[in-house]
């Protein structure tokens, strides 16, 4: 749809892309950061629907006790692919899409530093998605280990596991190339006068995120490579008989896995740090402390990994260290939450859809953060490990955190992308349906977990039935209401009120100085940076 949109405007903005390929080839060969950002966003939305459908299979099975619709093996494959697709196929590409679209506009760069490699970063995603989704149909089915791919189970799985391993390799390559691109763009292509400490907060969060990705994705590549050689070449990394240890995999995986949590969360923080000041009509409170908080979260995230492993038999001193280190993260995260709240204090608030999603994020992410603190306590976690409390916790962080923030960004920047205002009524309906059904789906899971219901099991004891039924109703409501996004986006692409260059009166930044929709090429010569547009 975006293609027709651009074609329709080719006549009256100074596009020079008419020299390039048209039709499908335009999208395949493009080196334009806006095209690539659009492709990332559409890809992530398609993957979001695929991963969402898988979660509905899980919730349908859990509607009532006993086995109804799927076999336990298929249930495990669904929950594994749901997680891998949502993390690597939906949430991460969504924020890379925002980065592609917005970072060059925010810092006044003509494009990403490596426009051709940028295209490859995107086009590596479809092969990985093909490997992951088609693995359902090979003998033995897809990987059924959960997204953490723990051995020894992952050593024993069929060839679907190999496909997941290679998909992870390809996704890792894509992430590393994308991150090198983003980090180089931010460090080397800012408009003259835009110092690092005047940079928009979204760019700061991505700078740290890109660092986390470059540091942690190769670790995951190493981990799955060792899985592969253990599976096929007789090595013994994760085999005690050969002197190895399955727990070694957990250490290496979570050394990647915990930074990964912040790889998802930090860009979400960045989006919210733009939306809340814009709709409060104030500067972001505590810019400098926000920057240091981001850097601190990024740094500490490398030193807390074993809080995922309290029950693996790590020594008591290790448990204590990881408990305290994990709690330390609450400090910079708290700084951020308080700064957002203080930004709103005595602001001239209005509640358009982006602001609603940002506030939904703020409330629900804080709940997810606090349950994270509960889980950080070793003594408590030993009870709650692998229960639905953990499932509830990370869905509050991933869905109400990352996804709500992505929606805030989508509604915030949609006028800049399409040139039209979205339908505010539909947007608000989308928010309230999401907010209500999300909590119906996931809040009861706290109680299920506290009562001892284990995760990753398709059957459960009778006493868990009521909360599970509520949760399933909520999840289907949530899933169906997400289709509203498609309606909103298509309507905004097709028409609607014309968006001004700065559709939000409180918004600051270079991205609002270019027309809406943003012309195909922007800032080919570096703009003069107006301090009035600075976020600090």
């Amino acid at each position, binding site marked *: 749809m975006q293609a027709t949109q651009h074609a329709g405007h080719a006549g009256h903005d100074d596009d020079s892309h008419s020299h390039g390929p048209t039709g499908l080839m335009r999208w395949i060969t493009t080196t334009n950061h806006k095209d690539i950002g659009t492709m990332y966003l559409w890809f992530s939305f398609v993957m979001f629907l695929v991963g969402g459908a898988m979660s509905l299979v899980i919730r349908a099975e859990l509607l009532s006790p006993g086995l109804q619709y799927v076999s336990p093996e298929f249930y495990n494959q669904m929950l594994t692919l749901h997680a891998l697709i949502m993390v690597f196929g939906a949430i991460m590409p969504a924020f890379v899409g925002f980065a592609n679209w917005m970072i060059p506009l925010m810092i006044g760069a003509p*494009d990403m530093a490596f426009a051709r490699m940028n295209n490859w970063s995107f086009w590596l995603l479809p092969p990985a998605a093909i490997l992951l989704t088609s693995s359902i149909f090979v003998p033995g089915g897809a990987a059924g280990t959960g997204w953490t791919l723990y051995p020894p189970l992952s050593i024993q799985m069929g060839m679907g596991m190999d496909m997941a391993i290679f998909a992870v390799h390809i996704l890792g390559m894509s992430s590393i190339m994308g991150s090198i691109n983003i980090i180089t763009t931010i460090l080397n292509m800012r408009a003259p006068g835009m110092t690092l400490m005047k940079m928009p907060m979204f760019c700061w969060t991505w700078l740290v995120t890109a660092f986390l990705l470059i540091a942690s994705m190769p*670790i995951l590549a*190493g981990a799955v490579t*060792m899985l592969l050689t253990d599976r096929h070449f007789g*090595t013994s990394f994760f085999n*005690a008989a050969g*002197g190895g240890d399955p727990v070694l995999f957990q250490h290496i995986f979570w050394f990647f896995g915990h930074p990964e949590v912040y790889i998802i969360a930090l860009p979400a923080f960045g989006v919210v740090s733009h939306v809340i000041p814009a709709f409060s009509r104030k500067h972001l409170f505590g810019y400098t402390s926000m920057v240091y908080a981001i850097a601190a979260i990024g740094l500490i995230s490398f030193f807390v990994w074993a809080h995922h492993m309290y029950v693996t038999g790590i020594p008591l001193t290790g448990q204590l260290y990881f408990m305290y280190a994990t709690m330390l993260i609450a400090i910079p995260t708290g700084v951020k939450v308080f700064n957002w709240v203080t930004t709103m204090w005595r602001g001239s608030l209005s509640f358009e859809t982006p602001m609603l999603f940002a506030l939904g994020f703020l409330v629900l992410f804080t709940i997810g953060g606090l349950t994270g603190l509960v889980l950080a306590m070793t003594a408590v976690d030993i009870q709650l490990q692998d229960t639905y409390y953990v499932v509830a916790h990370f869905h509050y962080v991933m869905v109400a955190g990352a996804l709500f923030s992505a929606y805030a960004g989508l509604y915030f920047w949609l006028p800049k992308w399409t040139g039209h205002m979205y339908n505010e009524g539909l947007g608000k309906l989308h928010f309230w349906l999401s907010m209500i059904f999300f909590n119906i789906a996931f809040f009861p899971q706290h109680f299920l977990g506290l009562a001892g219901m284990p995760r990753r099991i398709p059957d459960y004891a009778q006493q868990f039935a009521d909360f599970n039924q509520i949760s399933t109703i909520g999840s289907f409501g949530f899933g169906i209401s997400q289709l509203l996004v498609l309606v909103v986006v298509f309507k905004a692409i097709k028409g609607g009120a014309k968006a001004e260059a700065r559709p939000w009166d409180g918004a600051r930044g270079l991205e609002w100085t270019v027309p809406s929709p943003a012309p195909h090429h922007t800032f080919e010569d570096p703009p003069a940076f107006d301090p009035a547009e600075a976020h600090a």
Partner: protein
Amino acid sequence: MSHPAAANRYFVPAPSHWPLVGSLALLLLASGAVLTMNSIANGGFVLMGGFAVLAVMLFGWFGRVIGEAESGSYNLQVDRSFRWAMAWFIFSEVMFFAAFFGALFYVRVLSVPDLASADQALLWDGFKNQWPSAGPAVKDPFTPMHAWGIPAINTLLLLSSGVTVTWAHWGLIANKRQQLIIGLALTILLGLVFISLQAYEYGEAYSHLNLKMTTGVYGSTFYMLTGFHGFHVTLGATMLIVILLRTVKGHFTAERHFAFEAVAWYWHFVDVVWLGLFVVVYWL
């Protein structure tokens, strides 16, 4: 779109089909590897096809980049981008090796001592905490690799190659093309001798020392670390050969030679990884 006329503008390349070719190559490589590893017919052909497409992509894409560099499309800001990117790429490689070094430290410090501890005596009675170890259940005797034979020679070779590549760089900066070419050729030669000696060492390990990938964690970590390092040396030597050919064709100036420096950085990185390997895999 490129605007070669506006010399000060940041170069944005024209649309290109090479990324898609690269993605196709990786899809073929991954599918071919999955099929081959699971002994499904024709997997090898898919794998070979993947390598072929990858080779075409690398030739085409790098050829394009070299053409752009030589035609002066890249201003100094683009040059700085390349430098940042190469530095971060090497950092990502460091972290890749860190995963395997971490695995080695873990098995040496934690898992092997634990398997030999009193707690495990019921399962693995009589297993001794020592290194090298193939673990409690691998009974096949093996001889570990000694540090002060071929590995020590290899250390000298790689350290010398670090010197020769720097000498070549001095030649490039001083516009002494012959010194540059000789220095590069010597570096490549040292690299190739290193790779040959590694290959010989692997042959010896399999035929005489009974040291295999299946030799417990010692064999696993030994082959994983030295194998990936050897692969990186091969990659580095290949890139050095490309740089040598470009030098002979008259590419690079004393002021602008990012590609040379990038490969030199990469070569030094491979060198430093080897020093780590020599100390913790072969020596200690």
